């Protein structure tokens, strides 16, 4: 049977089967099992209504349990067994083996980089785009163009950016836009401006911003009032921010001291460490539209009185944005940030298609795929999947707690 026909039959059987199941099971419940007539009509109706939700939920619970619930536990079990020994229980041996591999720590380091850079950059660009496009007439067109990469697959985006990063030997015409721009720099005044002054300024602003956030986080600890857990969280995140600010400051020195190979076309994806950022650009490019759409809706939801009051008090546009608008949409920013964090933790296609983890660009999801399907080592593969799960679980718990709060 041709796949297309098979697909059609599956749609008919699947959809028809579902509808049929719901229809006939309800019919059976109402007419045969607990008919709403006869001497026990009232009791039967109540009983039928007790069972009915489970008829409606049945297929969903079955599918969720089998395809998402069961695998969590099965993967946990597999990570403690060894496939070559017929699935014998080996305790934490897989984890030990994995922790001893430099490639795993490379993946962890890169994932942490991704976790910091991609959500931050996407949210920042998204916020910028949302704020700017909301103030102009053709804003909706601009929005839909920035939003467009959301529809493009990670693989398609990888091809798009491989063309951007393409390098030809020196002397040939460059067909990758990045190298074409790079070849314009010759070490003169323009190069100084764009490659030294501009990056130093950007890094300095970034460091100042992060340090300010760290200060905001740390300041309330002294004044007291919060409970000990909140204080600890504030202390940790505040110190992390300060540390990031320090790293940024140290990089300023690196940039100043760096010797650029002018006139040499660069194959960007093979430059260790920095190639990670060229891969991240792809995801930032895709996710900015998402952040923009959500944040733009949040910005429009801000009560106008607050902005009017600020204008009357003589605030300038920057003050209005940072002191009035941003604090009011903070919850939305957190939601956007966590959503992108989830995407980042699972990022696979981009690395797989562009470098396949070579040149020190490995990430956890690709590491896992390597272990599972190339090395055929299900134990270590499952162990790395569990690591991804562990990284996700704080967000999972937070989401569930939030959802329970809303329900009440």
């Amino acid at each position, binding site marked *: 049977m041709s796949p297309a026909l098979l697909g059609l039959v599956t749609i008919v059987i699947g959809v028809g089967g579902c509808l049929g199941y719901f229809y006939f099971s309800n019919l059976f419940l109402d007419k045969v099992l607990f008919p709403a007539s006869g001497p026990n009509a009232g009791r039967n109706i109540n009983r039928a209504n007790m069972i009915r939700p489970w008829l409606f939920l049945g297929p969903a619970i079955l599918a969720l349990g089998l395809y998402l619930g069961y695998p969590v536990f*099965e993967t946990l079990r597999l990570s403690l067994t060894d496939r070559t020994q017929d699935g014998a229980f080996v305790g934490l041996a897989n984890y030990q083996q994995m922790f001893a591999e430099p490639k795993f720590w490379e993946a962890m380091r890169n994932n942490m980089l991704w976790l910091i850079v991609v959500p931050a950059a996407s949210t920042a660009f998204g916020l910028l785009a949302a704020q700017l496009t909301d103030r102009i007439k053709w804003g909706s067109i601009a929005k839909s*163009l920035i939003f467009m990469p959301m529809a*493009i697959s990670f693989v398609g985006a990888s091809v*798009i950016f491989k063309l951007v990063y393409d390098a030809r030997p020196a002397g040939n*015409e460059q067909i990758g836009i990045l190298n074409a721009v790079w070849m314009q720099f010759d070490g003169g005044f323009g190069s100084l401006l764009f490659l030294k002054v501009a990056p130093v300024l950007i890094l300095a602003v970034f460091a100042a911003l992060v340090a300010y956030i760290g200060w905001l986080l740390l300041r309330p600890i002294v004044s007291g009032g919060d409970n000990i857990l909140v204080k600890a969280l504030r202390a940790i995140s505040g110190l992390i921010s300060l540390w990031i600010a320090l790293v940024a400051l140290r990089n300023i020195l690196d940039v100043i001291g760096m010797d650029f190979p002018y006139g040499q076309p660069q194959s960007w994806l093979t430059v260790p460490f920095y190639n990670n950022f060229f891969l991240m650009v792809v995801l930032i490019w895709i996710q900015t539209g*998402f952040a923009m759409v*959500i944040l733009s809706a949040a910005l429009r939801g801000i009560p106008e009185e607050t902005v009017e009051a600020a204008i009357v008090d003589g605030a300038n546009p920057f003050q209005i944005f940072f002191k009035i608008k941003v604090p009011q949409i903070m919850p939305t920013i957190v939601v956007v940030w966590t959503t992108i964090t989830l995407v980042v933790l699972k990022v696979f296609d981009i690395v797989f298609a562009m470098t396949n983890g070579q040149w020190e660009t490995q990430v956890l*999801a690709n590491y896992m795929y390597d272990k599972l399907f190339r090395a055929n080592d*299900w134990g270590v593969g499952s162990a790395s999947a569990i690591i991804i*799960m562990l990284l996700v679980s704080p967000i999972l718990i937070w989401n569930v707690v939030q959802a329970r709060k809303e329900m009440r």
Partner: protein
Amino acid sequence: MDNIAGRKSGLSWAVNISVVALVLLWLFPTVGLLVSSFRTADQISASGWWKALFPSEQVVQLRTGGAEAATQEGDLWVVEGNLLKDSEEGPEPGAEITRFGVSSKAVDAFAVGETTTFAKDTKTFTMDAAGTYRFTSTKELKKRGQRVFITATLPPEFTLANYDQVLLSGNSNDSMTKAFLNTLTVTIPATIIPIVIAAFAAYALAWMEFPGRALLIAAIVGLLVVPLQLALIPLLKLHLNIGIGKGYLGVWLAHTGFGLPLAIYLLRNYMSGLPRDIIENAKVDGATDFQIFTKIILPLSFPALASFAIFQFLWTWNDLLVAKVFLIDSTGNTTVMTNQIVELLGTRGGNWEILATAAFVSISVPLLVFFAMQRYLVRGLLAGSVK
């Protein structure tokens, strides 16, 4: 908003320029791929795609007519004609010639309209911008005509040959037709089936009272973020054990399972916002839950259903991992487009004309869906994350 207090923002022009810059930056990469897919391999490697949009200057070597085209005027042999129209190679007629030369040492020695005398003053040559020339010689001409170098400004040139190669040639390496159909076969059932299952479950969670409801909703919120990486090995083992193996059925089931949490979450949020009166009135009138669901809830929930359908469609169409694990076997007959492109990246990494075209074929459908149904997509995003 800044105009509220009667002040016109002086930043307005700066905002416009920044947005233009941002949009261009975001569009640039995609446009590059699109333009490249309409260029030949030679054009792509000869110049950056951004130059393809403008007329380019090119030096071409052509020949005048030879002895058989010559006529005798007194003691002169004369050849007249049009270089662009007479020769099969070189630029199309219509290209504008700016300079010419008759020696390979000075290919752009003369401007059009000038007359050059060469070969010890025995020959003269002149031509205009359209390519019409006059070549004279005091001696009888050889069979082959005179070599002429022209510098011409060529209009931008594009070709559909790449799409022909990728879609119609049937070349087993490059052809995307099969992968396109396979992708479609994966996508459509994997979009429709979870919607049906999720709609019933969402209705139960939104409008039925039963013990454990809150717990179930919390569980679904939790499952929303479970990484599907966790599910790969256990489910592949399961599929192999119960005989589904690798194939369409497996990938449909997997996509259904992975799509359900979001589907139930979105639909439940939407359905629980529907007015209670309608449902209670219908109950009073004696409608069963099944009737309420199919006749009232489903039609009213259309926007939410459309939102999720777009999500799931984009996600299954663009997916690589699930297809690689649950669908594509060693024969490669069931390859999908994303996988085909990754393979092309390996085998034809330098052939940008094929890569660009293949990638564009694969992203064109999601882009169409995106621009046609953007409203629902945005609504779904807002419902799914801002809560």
